[in-house]
């Protein structure tokens, strides 16, 4: 049984006013347990709207969402249960920090779950470890941290609920390269150790090509492409039409192909490209 099942989901903002906007338009999807799904799409393509349906924050106007066999729209209690199962990290999550100390902020989710103090402590320490927040910061105020540290604390606050599904909306936006790398690594780490299903919304093709095992491309509220990264990135022209880029490695491979070099088109990681180029050079001889 898939852990997430979405059937002809539609969501319309400001319905019945002159400002009506169809943000999500008939989406059908199934996501299996343990998958690492990358979600990409141009700005305003409905990604954020879509993921807020997966834990019942938004209710579908038509269609339905089934999480692990339960429908979040069925009752308030189910929705709340599902929120602990499906952890959602919003865009710029650092603006949701509110507690006096980092420790208490990370503990907010587990405490809402009704865990015992000891379990809360265990959850908090483990989550902080996953995102690399040192225990020495536990007693400082979240408002005094740097932007990158705040982001980490906010992500830990969701991870601390140990959700079976972790959804992150552009967790690396506005961070420096080292910080981005670090956070992505933390997420991969969480995926590997807990076996959780992860959905990652990102605008960086290179990042997402490297770590996701499946890509879903949104365009104007619909799913335009869905498949393994190699499949998706072989539609380079379509992606460009949607205002999206392909990873740099694919870009280089395509350019080489245009110049008559015999090379695969569906290359999407720098490492694989390097390997191919080295082997090619072996054939051609040093230039």
């Amino acid at each position: 049984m898939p852990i997430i099942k979405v059937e002809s989901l539609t969501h319309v903002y400001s319905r019945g006013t002159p400002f009506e906007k169809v943000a999500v338009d008939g989406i059908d999807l199934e996501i299996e347990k343990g998958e690492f799904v990358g979600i990409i799409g141009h700005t305003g393509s409905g990604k954020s709207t879509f993921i807020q349906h997966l834990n019942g924050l938004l209710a579908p106007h038509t269609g339905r969402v089934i999480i692990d066999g339960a429908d979040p729209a069925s009752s308030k209690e189910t929705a709340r249960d599902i929120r602990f199962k499906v952890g959602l990290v919003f865009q710029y999550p650092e603006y949701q920090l509110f507690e006096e100390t980092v420790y208490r902020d990370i503990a907010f989710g587990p405490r809402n779950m009704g865990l015992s103090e000891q379990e809360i402590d265990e959850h908090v320490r483990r989550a902080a470890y996953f995102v690399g927040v040192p225990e020495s910061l536990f007693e400082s105020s979240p408002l005094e941290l740097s932007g990158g540290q705040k982001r980490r604390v906010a992500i830990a606050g969701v991870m601390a609920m140990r959700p079976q599904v972790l959804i992150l909306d552009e967790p690396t936006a506005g961070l420096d390269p080292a910080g981005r790398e670090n956070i992505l690594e933390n997420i991969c780490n969480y995926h590997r150790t807990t076996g959780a299903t992860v959905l990652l919304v990102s605008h960086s093709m290179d990042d997402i090509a490297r770590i996701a095992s499946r890509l879903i491309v949104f365009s104007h509220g619909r799913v335009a492409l869905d498949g393994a990264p190699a499949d998706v990135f072989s539609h380079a022209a379509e992606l460009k039409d949607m205002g999206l880029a392909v990873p740099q490695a694919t870009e280089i491979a395509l350019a080489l192909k245009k110049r008559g070099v015999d090379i695969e088109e569906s290359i999407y990681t720098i490492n694989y490209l390097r390997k191919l180029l080295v082997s090619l050079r072996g054939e051609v001889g040093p230039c």
Partner: protein
Amino acid sequence: MLKNVTLGQYFPGATPVHRLDPRTKLIFLTGYIVALFLAKNWASYALIFFTLAAVSYTAHIKPKTLLSGLKPLLFIVVFTALINLLYGTGEPLYTFWIFRITRQGIHNAIFMVLRIMMLVCGTFMLTYTTSPLSLTDGLELLLNPLKKIRLPVHELSMMMSIALRFIPTLIEETDKIMSAQKARGAAFDTGKLTDRARALLPLLVPLFVGAFRRADELATAMECRCYHGGEGRTRMKQLRFSGIDFAAFSLCALLIAAVCVLRAFGL
């Protein structure tokens, strides 16, 4: 959910009503209200109603939109009507218990309801067709003479425009933070009253922190652009009266005059 709150919502457009100078619209509205309070009989109410209808037709504002704005006032309207209806003076047509329904009472109730409705609709016509910014601009210029008595007119209107500008932003932000905390299991709509009050903390703290951060950033941005109060400040959009403004003034004067005449003759 919070998106449904409309505070004097503005419908952009390019009709003659939209193009009127905001000062004209403010003065016209004042004149309209004066006429409404001077009106005493069917003929003058009809005249005022006709004016309202003509303006809303010109501005492409549908009657449905105007009426839907009245919804929150339904209670007040019904209440006023009942009071007027049940406590009329004069010859009773019908009595029961302590109430007396009189011809005068019915008459008063109808007029009172009409007056409230037309008053509110008139005010809506202003906010529907004028952007909040040009409204504060107009207000500032109209109140300018009060600077003589040391009223900080410019500062007040600047504060008002900033507040208006940030209402939607704050609503959006509230929505976002609420969703984020709900995602961590916060319950805003269940539990006892004390629980609910405590549940507001995760919402209010980030909201205030955000508001102060914004205020700080805005102040810096204003100072970077050399803002130093209203003294010697010129405007990018100069407000100037044109032909339609004078036409509107004439119409307004005509309306008041007509209502006065009708009142004098007691038609």
